[in-house]
């Protein structure tokens, strides 16, 4: 008989469990920490201490078609905001930063665009992408955001002894050896063979799998990763709901990676997302709060869109 099990995420966010075609490291080595994949590892409760969560949000303000001497390319006006939350008994918003870009594909480089919104001046910095694929400008915006996010994570963690959890996979930008942990909400790729992936179903909250290494053909150990469960499995859910994958750079060394894995695994269940969050429980509560706050910091989308359209009309009239 076919058994049907639910995914806890709201349908419009896709599925927490969804194999996705994205650039991920293809090679996995499950035997870096232990050979024994039969039982979950339950680290002892985490030591007290501050933890920082870093995240970013982005928004397309207006989609474009850029024309440059007969060449036409897709493009967009986009905004992003990145920020951090410090949880140290109290959760407080730490630094944040807002970026805006005008991106065009096909190697077309637009000029810098400055518009007035109310009494403020808002500037969109130019960026370009070689591809003409209509999705590439968005991908570029995402990259700009991740770049800023990685820089912020590195900056925060550079202050000694700080544990930083970045929402999303670690990017290739700013490859530091700092103890920055990437947390991937979406189960997008099978790294483990069926025999080992079976362990995920057995994880209880605050328990993890052994570490496994991720890399490519040239450099097989680039990151250490592990799975952990945030909340107890509930009856209607499939057994991979409520699981996140975390990763650290291999540069920190295996021992440090194991230490970080234990600490983060014991720590994160306390920050599991609110049941009211559409991506609960993987979207951690501090991150959910931060995202709402950052979205607000990007400003009102309707006003920006109107300002951009007005700028175009005025440019037409003026030119």
């Amino acid at each position: 008989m076919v058994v049907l099990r639910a995914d806890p995420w709201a349908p419009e966010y896709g599925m927490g469990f969804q194999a996705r075609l994205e650039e991920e490291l293809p090679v996995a080595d499950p035997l870096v920490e232990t050979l024994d994949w039969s039982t979950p590892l339950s680290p002892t409760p985490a030591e007290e201490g501050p933890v920082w969560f870093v995240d970013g949000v982005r928004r397309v303000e207006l989609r474009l078609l850029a024309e440059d001497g007969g060449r036409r390319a897709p493009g967009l006006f986009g905004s992003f905001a990145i920020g951090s939350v410090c949880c140290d008994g109290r959760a407080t918003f730490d630094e944040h930063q807002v970026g805006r870009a005008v991106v065009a594909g096909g190697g077309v480089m637009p000029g810098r665009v400055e518009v007035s919104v109310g009494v403020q001046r808002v500037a969109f910095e130019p960026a370009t992408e070689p591809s003409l694929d209509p999705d590439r400008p968005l991908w570029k915006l995402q990259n700009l955001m991740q770049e800023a996010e990685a820089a912020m994570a590195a900056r925060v963690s550079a202050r000694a002894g700080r544990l930083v959890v970045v929402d999303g996979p670690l990017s290739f930008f700013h490859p530091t050896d700092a103890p920055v942990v990437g947390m991937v909400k979406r189960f997008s790729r099978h790294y483990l063979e069926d025999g080992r992936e079976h362990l995920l179903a057995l994880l209880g909250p605050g328990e993890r799998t052994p570490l496994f290494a991720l890399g490519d053909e040239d450099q097989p150990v680039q990151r250490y990763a592990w799975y952990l469960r945030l909340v107890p499995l509930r009856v209607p859910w499939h057994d991979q709901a409520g699981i996140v994958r975390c990763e650290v750079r291999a540069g920190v060394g295996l021992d440090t990676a194991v230490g970080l894995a234990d600490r983060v695994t014991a720590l994160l269940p306390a920050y599991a997302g609110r049941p009211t969050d559409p991506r609960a429980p993987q979207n951690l509560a501090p991150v959910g709060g931060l995202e709402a706050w950052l979205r607000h910091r990007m400003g009102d989308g309707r006003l920006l869109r109107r300002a951009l359209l007005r700028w175009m009309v005025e440019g037409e009239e003026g030119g």
Partner: protein
Amino acid sequence: MSVEPEMASEPVGLVIGTEDATPLSFWVGVSPDAYLQLDDAVIVDTEVPGRGTVRIAGLVQEVRARHEGATFDTDVFLIDRGVLPVDTAVAAQVVATRFEPEVFVPPMPGLPALRARGKDRDEALYFDQMTRRVVGGLSRDGEPMFLDLDFLDGTRGAHVNISGVSGVATKTTYAMFLLYALFHSPVLGGYRGNTKAIVFNVKGEDLMWLDTPNARLTQAQREDYERLDLPVGPFESVGLWAPPRGGAGGQAIPHVESRSNGVTAYYWTVREFVREKYLRFLFAEADDERSQIADLVARVESFLDRECEDDPDHEATVLHGGYPVRSFDELCDAIRANVEDDHSPWRGRLSDATVAAFVRRLDSGRFRLDQNHLIWGREAEDPRRHRIDWEANQVTVVDIHNLHDRAKRFVTGVVIKRLFEHKERMGRREPLAFLVLDELNRYAPREGWSPIKEVLLDVAERGRSLGMILIGAEQTASEVERRVIANSAFRVVGRLDTAEAQRSEYGFLPAVTRSRASILKPGSMILQQPHIPIPVQIRFPFPSWATRADEAAPDASTDPFGAFEGD
């Protein structure tokens, strides 16, 4: 001249744009390092194109605090655990009281709001426009609050009305505080000495100690008086009057429990009763047959006055038909005999039923006055000494708390009528006469008619020009004649019953203030005055005069331990 630092207005926040700012009401986001509380005075300067700067002043009507970023009630637990980051926002709603110059525009969002201090606060509360002002209490932040004497003494308005639940609303105490502030500050100028007040003591013997300092006043309470620039002490000039005790012969001994000296017994004589036409106050009950009976009462009063001659043998009595009327009983018998006589001109053409009703009321009234020994005949020794003399002291307390209801109406009716006639004869406003009367609902009820209600209406409507100022109080304003309340320039509310606070009589209280009225502590009142468009909560200092025997300061001569001093 530089402004003292604590007297300079200080920035407390910015006008927010997420709530509509209107000319009459706007919200101020309060900075994390500042606070605003209810009733704080706030000013905002806003630029109006072509008109320059407009200063909007107002009072804080409501303050709220909330988590921004929290969506669900349970988020607070996550916030407490340090999981969910949020901002905390505090905002205060300001209700505008004044625009200078008068351009009714809203303050622009983003403008700085300042807590008004010193001169700015005076302007926000119109104190700068009060040429003669009397302290009415302390604001919540301990600053003096003033009343405009122009609206109290009849120049532009008069009368004070105080409502509130008995026992906790401290209505009478507040009325006495107002009198104290008037009589012990220079505000009345040259008339201060001759300004008088008559106070009816309706409950307990609270007011029988006005002339004695309060020994239980703490240092902090003394400082309140200092802040108001008032001396600490008892009323300087007080006359205390109480009804006579029964069975004491010709000597009238005051019927007071808590003190033995300094109180004079009061009564009236048969002759005064006849000459001054007090009979109507025996009939001081609201009822339906009023026109017929009132007509008969008026006839009897005038026949009595006309047919009675002064008794040459005693100053308290009269002769009727050549025979002496030696007591109040004999007077009532004579009245009864005359109205029941079919051939007497006293009854005119009134029906037997009216006469019977008249006699019934006469008998019950007579019984009550007799019971309280209020009208004396030949037994009176030195009756002049026992006639209430409000000229002798600044404050005259007339104790009626022991009297039967009917006797209370008689005493208040007679005293108020005499005072009113006295002011009418004087023909000018100053010096003022204040009248403090609690339980107005009993004397000027909304329904029905009575002679006292008529006198009180006269006071309410004509007292302003005559300089007779009514400080009236009642538990429920909804039960008091509308015109008495409508003529009061100052409305004061102490603790109110929640249901009573919803009635239309308290329409001057905004919804928030109504809710506040049901949690007011003794000593706190909400004051509405003509200048300030919204009512303000105030508190007034603890009485510096005694209100009970155990508060009366023992002076050296009677202090039982005084003899041991210096050992």
